[in-house]
């Protein structure tokens, strides 16, 4: 009997649930899925509507309420191609660059804080204090960096460069990267490294060849968060770029002023900016949940 129950998809709880509860459950789930998905649907349909169908609507269903046209997508990849490509590339380069740096630097510091004992004598700080100081940097309001960053970036000619954006995003991503990686390494047994070191591996060799491959899930989580943060970031991209390095969010936000509100074109552009992160989210949801709960669940 026990054997059979285990093979049922949902043991014991489903059978107890009255019908009205199941109905309510599904109603809430479907309602919320609708709330989440409908805006995406609306973006997608708006991007293939004629301007007249956008302003004299609302038109919900393609081919019935309105005749879809590919014009805005063609414009985005046709006359606007140079701009679309440049901004997309800017986003990609600055997000990818800062992701690589954040993962490397975060993994190193996380490993250090997990395996060595630090003591900063003058401050009286041990590992926990240092880790707390690092994560606290993540929660400083970015507004406080506006003036110093503008002055600093002007002095070092970093305004409107990939390097400038990559440096800024790496700085913002490091605290979270260190936090997740430290948590991850803490849960990783030291035996493997120790036996590798008995066999003559250096500390660095053991880190690179034994520890890192075992921490792939943690590294992926850090990479996802860093990438999504940098991809979506608006304030610093707006502040530190003016033409060459402008990223997608700044381009989209600026549609307001430069062309008047062309919802159809903005929708296409918005989808373009959102697709990469949504794909990452859908494919790698497990890692995201894991990364989010690192530390948070344990308290």
């Amino acid at each position, binding site marked *: 009997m026990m054997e059979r129950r285990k093979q049922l998809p*949902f043991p014991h709880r489903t059978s107890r649930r009255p019908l009205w509860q199941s109905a309510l*459950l599904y109603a809430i*789930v479907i309602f*919320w*899925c609708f709330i*989440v*998905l409908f*805006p995406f649907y*609306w*973006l997608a349909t*708006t991007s293939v509507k004629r301007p007249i169908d956008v*302003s*004299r*609507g*609302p038109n*919900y269903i393609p081919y019935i309420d309105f005749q879809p046209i590919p014009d805005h997508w063609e414009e985005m990849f046709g006359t606007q191609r140079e701009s679309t490509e440049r901004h997309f590339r800017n986003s990609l380069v600055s997000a990818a660059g800062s992701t690589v740096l954040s993962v490397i630097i975060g993994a*190193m*510091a996380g*490993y*250090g804080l997990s395996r*060595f004992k*630090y003591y900063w004598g003058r401050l009286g700080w041990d590992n926990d204090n240092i880790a707390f100081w690092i994560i606290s940097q993540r*929660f*400083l*309001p*970015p*507004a*406080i*960096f*506006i*003036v110093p960053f503008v*002055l600093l970036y002007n002095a070092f000619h970093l305004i409107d460069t990939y390097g400038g954006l990559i440096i*800024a995003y790496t*700085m913002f991503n*490091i605290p979270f990267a260190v936090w997740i990686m430290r948590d991850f390494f803490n849960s990783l047994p030291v035996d493997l490294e*120790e036996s590798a070191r008995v066999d003559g591996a250096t*500390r660095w060799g053991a*880190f690179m060849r034994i520890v890192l491959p075992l921490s792939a899930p943690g590294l992926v989580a850090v990479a996802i968060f860093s990438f999504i943060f940098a*991809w*979506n970031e*608006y*304030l610093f991209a707006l*502040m530190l770029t003016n033409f060459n390095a402008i990223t*997608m*969010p700044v381009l*989209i936000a600026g549609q*307001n002023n430069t062309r008047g509100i062309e*919802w159809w074109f*903005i*929708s296409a552009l918005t989808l373009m900016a*959102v697709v990469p*992160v*949504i794909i*990452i989210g859908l494919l790698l949801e497990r890692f*995201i*949940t894991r990364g*989010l*709960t690192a530390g*948070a*669940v344990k308290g």
Partner: protein
Amino acid sequence: MSNTREDKLMKRVFLSPAVIILLSLSVFPLLWSLGISFTDMQRGGSTTARQAAAAGITDGVGFLGLGFELTGRNYERLLGDGRLHSTVRNTMIYVFVGVTIQYLIGLGLATVLNQPFRGRNIVRVIFLMPMVMTPVAAAYTGRMFFDSNPLRSPLADFLRDFGKLIGLERGISAPWFTDIAWAPIAILIIDAWQWIPFMTLILLAGMQAIPEDIYEAARVDGANALQIFLRVTVPILLPISMTVILIRGLEIFKIIDVVVVTTGGGPGSATESLTLYIFEQALSNGNYGYASAIAYVLLILVIIFATLFLMAGRRLAGGGRE
């Protein structure tokens, strides 16, 4: 194994890059902007330097010849700045109302997702989607929905029909972004739409970590579902709830993108956030000194919020368990 010479070196190698970056790009700018907040620095020099240049003096101007003057005027100016006061109020509303809504709905949805049902894994992935969306994009989408013209916005269309259905002659119509009372609500909804998933996912993970026998014991004692939720689930989730509320609260203090895209701070300054105001003072007006002083107001608010919250959390956790 950790006392060899190699280890002493490696210990530094591992931690140094992160610490050096944070010291030079976070701690140093933080202190620097505190310094700037006590000067009359502006874009392209300072008031002192400009006056001196106009008088034909180029060398040794200002404090130690650095070209600016030390002053406490920025902080005096804070007190009489009505626009600052309204941005502080708006930011506080975003933080406190926003966090409350997001937490309550997030907790409800986590409870739902904690039940076993067919398709739960797919639903969890769908629930996550708004969270990864670019905030600027979410804000534009929100702007389409909160258009009060029912010819353009599906939401206005729905509200009109729904209003008629419940017997209102002309339906329900809200002047979202043009009204000082409605505009903050629209912004709160957009931010909530985007970040409820964050609450949901973390609270769900917390719920799934609660062992089944605790529930079993409560059922044996004759507790009903509501009692179990209020007396078992909620108290156990208290520490993790405090964490998510704190994280979201601190994040909302930074809000700017949604405001810029939807209302630009208007009507008037009814929706302007502190971060947006600081940005405008620094980059549109070039008032570096004053912008830094306001940024320190924001920092102090954030520190007060976090400290009070951690203290309250410690007291609640202590009273609940020990």
